[in-house]
């Protein structure tokens, strides 16, 4: 956070004041994001006002009001509800305060830039990895997030679509888990009891990581990949623990969400907006592409690397090894 202090110093010769609303502080991923924000704020010469909407869109609305009252010149939002943010965007637009959105794309309304990785791509990458590993047949469990979460739904849909299209021989059991590790473990255990021949698991977030491993261990299924009893597990997020487990051979892969990049480019684009710069669709200088989602809405689609033990390519998806120094999960120390 920025600490308390003179919130009235909005104008004047000081650094431009920028508001950042964190979406939540109870997941490893967003906590990493929260950790990175002050660092990149300083790098971009911005004074930050922060708030936290605790995964509640009405809190976000109120927080943005407070930020406006404090005279911010730009706002970074990461609403977990992409529809309900529309009135807030509209209000910011009328006040001519540029908005950079992180992780989610608004259903309606304009933003200066959306910085996100493609959640559909996560699901697709997971599908391709499992599809190749299982040679296109068998049973897999997908531990979904919350049905009410757009990111979760995108991953689910992409995973299912890809499985149907490319690997029709694979049966998918989808389980909603409310992003809750205990629920995930319980449902996985039940499915494993009903279908002992399950060979793959797609966890849509790292919350289910250790519970899933415990279930596998309890059933003696936590064995190296060359053992026929092995169950292939792919996770999502790229927190340090996942990388460690991949290196140890306990899980097989993860899709690394770029938490550092989220923070870096969110503040980069905010600074650019305050400086009056504009962007056009096309490739960027940081290995990503800006696309125009609709008029008035640009989106910088950061790459989210697939991490596997061997760093091979799966059905055209390249991957990196867990020790790769470009992964945010390996750079948390600083």
């Amino acid at each position, binding site marked *: *956070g920025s600490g308390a202090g003179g919130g009235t110093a909005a104008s004047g010769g000081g650094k431009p004041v920028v508001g950042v609303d964190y979406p939540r502080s109870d997941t490893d991923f967003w906590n990493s994001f929260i950790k990175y924000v002050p660092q990149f704020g300083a790098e971009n010469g911005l004074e930050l006002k922060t*708030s*936290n909407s605790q995964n509640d869109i009405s809190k976000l609305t109120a927080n943005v*009001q*407070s930020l406006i009252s404090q005279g911010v010149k730009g706002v970074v939002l990461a609403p977990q509800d*992409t529809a*309900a943010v529309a*009135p807030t965007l509209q209000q910011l637009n009328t006040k001519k305060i540029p908005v950079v959105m992180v992780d989610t794309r608004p*259903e309606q309304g304009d933003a200066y830039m959306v910085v996100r990785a493609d959640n559909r791509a996560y699901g697709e990458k997971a599908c391709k990895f499992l599809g190749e590993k299982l040679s296109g047949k068998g049973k897999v469990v997908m531990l979904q997030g919350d049905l009410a979460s757009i990111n979760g739904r995108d991953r689910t849909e992409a995973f299912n679509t890809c499985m149907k299209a490319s690997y029709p021989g694979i049966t998918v059991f989808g389980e909603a888990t409310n992003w809750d590790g205990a629920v995930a473990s319980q449902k996985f255990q039940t499915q494993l009891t009903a279908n002992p021949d399950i060979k793959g698991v797609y966890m849509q977030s790292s919350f289910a990581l250790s519970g899933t491993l415990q279930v596998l261990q309890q059933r003696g299924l936590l064995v190296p990949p060359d053992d026929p009893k092995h169950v292939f597990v792919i996770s999502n997020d790229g927190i340090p623990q996942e990388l460690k487990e991949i290196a140890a051979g306990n899980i097989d892969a993860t899709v690394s969400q770029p938490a550092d990049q989220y923070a870096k480019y969110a503040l980069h684009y905010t600074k650019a907006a305050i400086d009056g710069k504009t962007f056009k669709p096309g490739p960027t200088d940081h290995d990503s592409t800006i696309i125009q989602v609709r008029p008035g809405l640009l989106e910088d689609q950061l790459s989210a690397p697939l991490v596997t033990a061997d760093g091979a390519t799966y059905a055209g998806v390249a991957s990196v090894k867990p020790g790769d120094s470009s992964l945010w999960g390996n750079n948390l120390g600083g």
Partner: protein
Amino acid sequence: MPERTLTPATENAAPERERPRIRLARLRDFALIPAIIAIAVVGQIVNPIFLQGDNLINILQTMSEISLLVLAQTIVLVAGKMDLSLESTFGLAPGVAAWLTVTAGSGAGLGLLPGAWSIPITLAAGALVGVVNALLIVRFGLNGFIVTLGMLIVLRGLLTGISGGQTFFNLPASMLYLGSALWLGVPASIWLCLLLFAAGIVLLGFTKYGRALYAIGGNVDAAKAAGIRTDRVLWTALVGASVLAALGGLLMSGHLASVAAAQGDGAIFTVFAAAVIGGVGLNGGKGTMFGAFTGILLLYMIQNVLTLAGVPAQWIQALNGGIIIVALMLSRLTGGKVQE
């Protein structure tokens, strides 16, 4: 005992002597005022934005929607019942309206009815929930806490079911109006909230119906023996509370221009905290509408101050809870009575 400090030392004539006690009973309504003032002072010190009109309107607007749940819950609590399902009605009622009126193309809507129907549908859905609650609680004599806990889960599940977990947007204009319009430069939802609370104060404090609620909450058998139609009063209280919750949900949907499948999720904790800090008893027959209002106001002021203070996100919750407990102890000191 606070009475002593308030009573003048001189001995008064008998009819005079009742004054201080009554003044005190009234004072109990204002038990939270010191806490509210304290928070305001702290807020102003922490960030001079705090007392600006803009920020105050922000606080009031943010609390306006949930405050209708507090209002509804207070009515139910005074009558000696509880309605946990209000938080789900808050989401489901506008959700049903959106489902039926939003054009099929966008999101999960069916688009069966024109947009003008949305407000009547919202209120009707609320009323229907209230009728089911009342049927189970009043008619069949099931335990209110557990019935409404079950209903909380069912109704939330229904909203998830009809929306497929998605958020309804592109709502019809009539649904947006109340939650987003400005009247005299102030959001309509603030006017509505203040108006409804004023009505609530009159209802509980100065009407037959209100006295009947207190009587039922205090001793239902005595109320019955005194000729109060207890079942009828409970029916209207439960149905009315659900309709108020639906109205609150409507404001919220208008404010956010959408209905999320999680709308209202977890709000019941805040609602109970507000009512109880505000002096409303959980066993019925105790508390006032004004007290409940100060309760929810205090909670939202705390939230606002914490945000303005830029407290690190991970500590906000702990602080929030701590302040609630302190407020409770303060109101105990002011109120002077052991609570329940």
